[in-house]
């Protein structure tokens, strides 16, 4: 998979949240977005996911332009902002409902993805009773369960304990090894530095530098 972001800018109200960003993101790599709050990490993820429309520029995914050829990327797993699921259903039921849209995976695949994030697949607790950490894990499970070609994870380690953080790091690496294009944003520099093949530093909606794993500036 190849994501090409070409001269993309976006205003929300009067605020410029993304300012003329151009990037090329390739598969089998982990791309880290780093920046302070309000730097544009989440907005850039939303643009790539097709949730918001650029005011200028375009985003091309495997040769197809978002907002022209396709509304959303064909194969995407996403965790942006707080996970949102149905309160009255268990984690498994929530994922099963999502899985029924494309019908690509079965119950065993769903249960495996729940186990992968450290949740009990047979847990009868409803989502409304989940802790923040459990909700976060379910959000990650939803993002990876269909083995999508592109995975966007915005602050995936929020509300997770140390075990959870390790688990997520291993999962991200596993998905990358599978061939997925993984984009991760995180405040924790150590996680980003440890995981990412390339780190994209954002500030005030602009890309200020791109650093690769070997610490060479581009």
């Amino acid at each position, binding site marked *: 998979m190849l994501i090409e972001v070409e001269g993309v800018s976006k205003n*929300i109200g009067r605020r410029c949240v993304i300012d003329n960003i151009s990037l090329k993101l390739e598969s089998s790599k982990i791309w880290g977005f780093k920046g302070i709050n309000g730097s544009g990490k989440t907005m850039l993820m*939303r643009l790539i*996911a*097709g*949730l*918001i*429309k650029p005011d200028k520029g375009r985003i091309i995914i495997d040769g197809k332009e978002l907002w022209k050829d*396709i*509304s*959303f990327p*064909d194969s*995407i797993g*996403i965790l942006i*902002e707080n996970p*949102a*699921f*149905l309160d*009255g259903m268990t984690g498994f039921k*929530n994922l099963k*409902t*999502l899985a*029924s*849209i*494309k019908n690509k995976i079965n119950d065993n695949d769903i249960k495996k993805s729940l186990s992968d994030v450290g949740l009990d697949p047979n847990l009868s607790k409803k989502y409304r009773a989940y802790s923040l950490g459990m909700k976060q894990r379910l959000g990650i499970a*939803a993002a990876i369960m269909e083995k999508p070609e592109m995975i966007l994870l915005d602050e995936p380690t929020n509300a997770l304990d140390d075990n959870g953080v390790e688990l997520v790091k291993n999962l991200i690496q596993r998905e990358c090894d599978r061939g997925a294009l993984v984009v991760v944003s995180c405040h924790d520099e150590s996680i980003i530095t440890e995981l990412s093949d390339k780190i994209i530093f954002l500030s005030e909606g602009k890309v200020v530098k791109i650093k690769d794993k070997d610490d060479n500036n581009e």
Partner: protein
Amino acid sequence: MFIKILKFDIKNGIIKRIWLYAILFLFFWLVDFVLFMQRMNMGVDTPELIEQKLTIGDMLLYALGGAKHFVIEETVAFPFPVQWMLVILIIAFTSLRYPVDNLSGYGRHIIILSGSRRAWWISKCVWLMINVCIYYFIMLLSAASFALFVGAECNLNINEFLLRLLMLNFRELVPMPWNIVVPLLLHIFTVYVLCMLQMLLSFFIRPLMSFFITSAILVFSLFFSSPFLIGNLAMPLRTENITTDEPISIGLGFVLCLSLCIVIFVIGLIKVNRMDILTKED
């Protein structure tokens, strides 16, 4: 893909709200009960008015009929149709939040996975249609069950006591029997169009503001009789089947509703295809 989204909407936007329909059933019973008691009260002074049994037609026209044309005359009373307003505002209010909440919550997963904003919008329009139909079906069920309970007649005839209750001018009425089925169908269609309009507006302004606009359309329609103020189309009492005083053509009413429905659908499609899907915090 639209069918899959619709299945989800039916499950979460209708089946999971069974409790709401139960409350609505009771509410309609209450409206029927109020009518029943008003009829009894009228019978105290003029017993001949209640010689004929209450009918389902009386109950439906009482709840959904609206009001006669408003005339600014000191000697002419205008009965504000509280029950008519409530019936429409309840369906408008209960269908207000689901589309917007859907888009900012779990529905975001659904729309991304489905890959189609168009399918999402079509599904919401169909969901709304099903929702409105169920609402009025419950009303009919409620009226029928109340009729059985109080020994009313299960037909659509209209009795004289209702005409007096609604303060209708007998000289301006079409000779009985009335065909109230078609005006009632126009009422239901109009309410659907109003709810669609409300849903569309909620993509531009806050949902509660769009609800207030719906309410304002209804209020203005009460006082200004024009088929282009579509609240008028939701008042069977102002249609040609019932009144001869500036009657609203039912055929024109359906055409207007259909046209508005298509316009709203197309604008909604364009809006949904272009809009940013953000959270409330943004």
